[in-house]
């Protein structure tokens, strides 16, 4: 290890492709634009005070969501580029190297930098409000989680223009991802970007675990929690016990690449398969980390728009607990064909199939929540309803894949690709749309336009099925994943064309959704009541957007769907007669941003093997931690008169709103 090595890599700035130059120009213009707008409107102070240093879970949630939508755009562009290249046999739109980079960044970004922050955004928005808390257990740590995620995402994304993108697939299998076969900064970006954001994820897991276990409103026993809160709790547990495996796996491969260790190399007797093993010990639970919160969101939406409490609440909870335990004992099904013997393959086949049982229980409970309901087809409900048959297809093909001997035929083919897109898009992405639209009024105080939302929904759904149903077929026809082109005459051409059309439709659906947001900012229906959907859980009992302190008085809970029962029993007045008290809140802090900047510097240094810079970054991180240890945040109090003013303002508008509508 040479501390003073500042060797410039062969290509510091990525060159050669017109698309990359275009991206370069766009990035520079966008950055200049942002700087100009902030300076011209004198908004730097506002940015720092209101956003960069905030510890408010609602604002952190919004920042997660903005990042996630941006990353959805980036990952989606990757997908559309891939589909364009595969539309016809023998196309030369992308070359092999470029295609390899694009599918690698597509997968990594969608899982780590899109699905995860989207889910975390919604958790941040909804969970403290659902349990009647003022904030999360550790607000500053929550901000740090976000900023570490942002630093990791930024680091990963700049690989596109500086140094070159990773190109060994999002699974980054060794020995391909080792130094020998894949030198240069690309894979380092993958390792360090994931590492930095992964640390943030782990801290979020701990934060939400403690928040949900210790900060619920009085009377809210565990079995009275809203289902989204339950799913967040279970997800947090999986995060806490799965993410350290990723941390270690990434660190070991980093040591292989940067410091000449031999964990996964052929030289020095390392074992390439060990990477696959460790990666999937984390990777399979990771799938449930992004799908369980989705289940939670669907549960909330279904029960709200069917006007019925969730059917089989306790079975829903137990099935999630079962899934969380099973998720740790199925990982080998990702590499049945890697020489594991028949005993191992049989055992992991069976454990994998077992997961379908609690999942099936959940599906039937949702169906019976709808049964005898009064179903309103709002946009969030449409996404949720679409989820049921879509996820069903993903689920049953999952059981088919679980059968090891059959998997020898599906593995690495488009059949597999279609399967996990049916679960991850049909589960997680649909839930992200459903949850975003559902909680949108709670975040911003107005609803998204329903008509545009429905257009975007239908176009996306049609596109999705056009894109992925044929993939099952061409998988069975022998088309493997990750090939950048294919010859004519194999019977793949027509189907690929249909898939590409589907992908473009999904892109159009997304574009309409973005337009829907822009349109609704001006024309969206204002939510004056705080309860635009006739909701059931506590987040709808406070104003939209919720005040800084969430609840003027911490609510008392007696039932599942606490707010619904309070509305039925007209218990609002009782609640409001209690006296107000000053509310204790945490202070803003710039430390999370600063620490994350140091982390970014460290990551960037190690990506280029400029170890001195890496170490300086790490020392900065340690310094920040020590500073924090010596400066305990004592918080501050919001006085009663301020609370009264805030509440009175909302009540007045709300009353006016009610008199207009009724």
């Amino acid at each position, binding site marked *: 290890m040479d501390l003073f090595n500042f060797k410039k890599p062969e290509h510091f700035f990525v060159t050669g492709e017109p698309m990359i130059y275009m991206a370069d120009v766009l990035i520079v213009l966008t950055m200049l634009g942002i700087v100009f707008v902030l300076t011209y409107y004198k908004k730097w102070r506002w940015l720092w005070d209101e956003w960069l240093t905030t510890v408010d879970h609602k604002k952190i949630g919004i920042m997660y969501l903005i990042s996630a939508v941006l990353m959805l755009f980036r990952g989606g562009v990757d997908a559309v580029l891939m589909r364009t290249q595969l539309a016809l046999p023998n196309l030369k739109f992308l070359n092999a190297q470029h295609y390899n980079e694009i599918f690698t960044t597509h997968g990594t970004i969608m899982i780590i930098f899109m699905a995860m922050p989207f889910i975390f955004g919604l958790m941040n928005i909804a969970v403290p409000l659902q349990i009647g808390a003022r904030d999360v257990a550790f607000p500053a740590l929550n901000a740090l989680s976000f900023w570490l995620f942002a630093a990791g995402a930024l680091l990963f994304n700049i690989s596109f223009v500086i140094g070159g993108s990773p190109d060994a697939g999002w699974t980054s299998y060794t020995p391909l991802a080792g130094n020998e076969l894949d030198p240069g900064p690309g894979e380092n970006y993958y390792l360090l970007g994931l590492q930095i954001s992964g640390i943030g994820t782990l801290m979020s897991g701990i934060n939400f675990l403690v928040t949900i276990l210790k900060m619920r409103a009085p009377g809210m026993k565990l079995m009275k929690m809203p289902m989204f809160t339950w799913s967040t709790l279970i997800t947090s547990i999986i995060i806490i016990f799965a993410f350290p495996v990723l941390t270690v796996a990434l660190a070991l491969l980093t040591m292989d690449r940067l410091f000449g260790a031999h964990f996964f190399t052929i030289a020095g007797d390392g074992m390439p398969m060990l990477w696959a*093993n460790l990666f999937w010990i984390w990777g399979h639970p990771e799938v449930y980390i992004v799908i369980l919160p989705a289940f939670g969101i669907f549960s909330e939406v279904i029960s709200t728009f069917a006007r019925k409490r969730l059917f089989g609440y306790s079975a829903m909870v137990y099935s999630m607990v079962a899934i969380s335990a099973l998720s740790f*004992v199925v990982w080998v099904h990702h590499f049945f064909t890697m020489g594991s013997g028949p005993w191992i393959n049989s055992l992991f086949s069976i454990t994998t199939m077992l997961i379908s049982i609690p999942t099936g229980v959940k599906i039937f409970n949702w169906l019976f929540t709808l049964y005898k309901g009064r179903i309103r087809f709002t946009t969030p409900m449409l996404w949720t309803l679409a989820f049921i048959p879509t996820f069903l297809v993903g689920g049953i093909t999952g059981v088919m894949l679980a059968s090891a001997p059959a998997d020898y035929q599906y593995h690495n083919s488009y059949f597999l690709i279609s399967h996990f897109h049916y679960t991850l898009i049909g589960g997680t992405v649909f839930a992200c749309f459903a949850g975003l639209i559902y909680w949108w009024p709670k975040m911003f105080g107005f609803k998204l336009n329903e008509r545009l939302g429905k257009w975007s929904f239908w176009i996306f759904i049609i596109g999705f099925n056009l894109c992925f149903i044929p993939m099952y077929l061409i998988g069975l026809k022998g088309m493997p994943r990750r090939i950048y082109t294919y010859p004519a005459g194999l019977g793949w051409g027509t189907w690929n064309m249909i898939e590409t059309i589907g992908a473009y439709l999904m892109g159009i659906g997304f574009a309409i959704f973005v337009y829907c947001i822009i349109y609704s900012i001006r024309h969206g229906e204002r939510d004056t009541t705080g309860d635009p959907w006739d909701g059931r859980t506590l987040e709808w009992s406070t104003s939209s957007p919720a005040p800084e302190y969430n609840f003027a008085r911490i609510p008392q809970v007696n039932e599942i769907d606490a707010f619904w029962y309070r509305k039925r029993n007209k218990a609002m007045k009782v609640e409001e007669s209690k006296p107000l008290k000053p509310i204790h809140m945490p202070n803003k802090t710039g430390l999370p941003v600063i620490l994350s900047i140091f982390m970014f510097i460290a990551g960037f240094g190690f990506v280029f093997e400029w170890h001195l810079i890496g170490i300086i970054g790490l020392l900065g991180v340690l310094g920040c931690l020590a500073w924090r240890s010596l400066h305990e945040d004592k918080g501050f109090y919001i006085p009663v008169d301020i609370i009264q003013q805030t509440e009175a303002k909302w009540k007045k508008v709300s009353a006016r709103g009610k008199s207009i509508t009724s």
Partner: protein
Amino acid sequence: MEHPNTLKKHIFGFLWSLILTFAALLITLRTNLPLGWKVTIIVTLAFFQLIIQLLYFMHLTEGDSKWIQVVNIVYGLFVAIVTVAGSIWIMLYNTMTH
């Protein structure tokens, strides 16, 4: 429950940890047991030490959240054992069965 950590308990815990450590050492180096037995015994002794530390030094069963703490550690150990045993099985013994 609130103040279980008397001096006596600490000394008790310390002595046990020393005894278990030396027992493991002697069993490993000074007996002729088959390797499988040695491994089983000393790993068991290590788990005993773990329990002693958790109960006598770390006050695992103390505070409002004692059940959460216990479940947390048990779940952690479950994942740890699955990870270690599963990896060894998959990496070293996977095709030895036939």
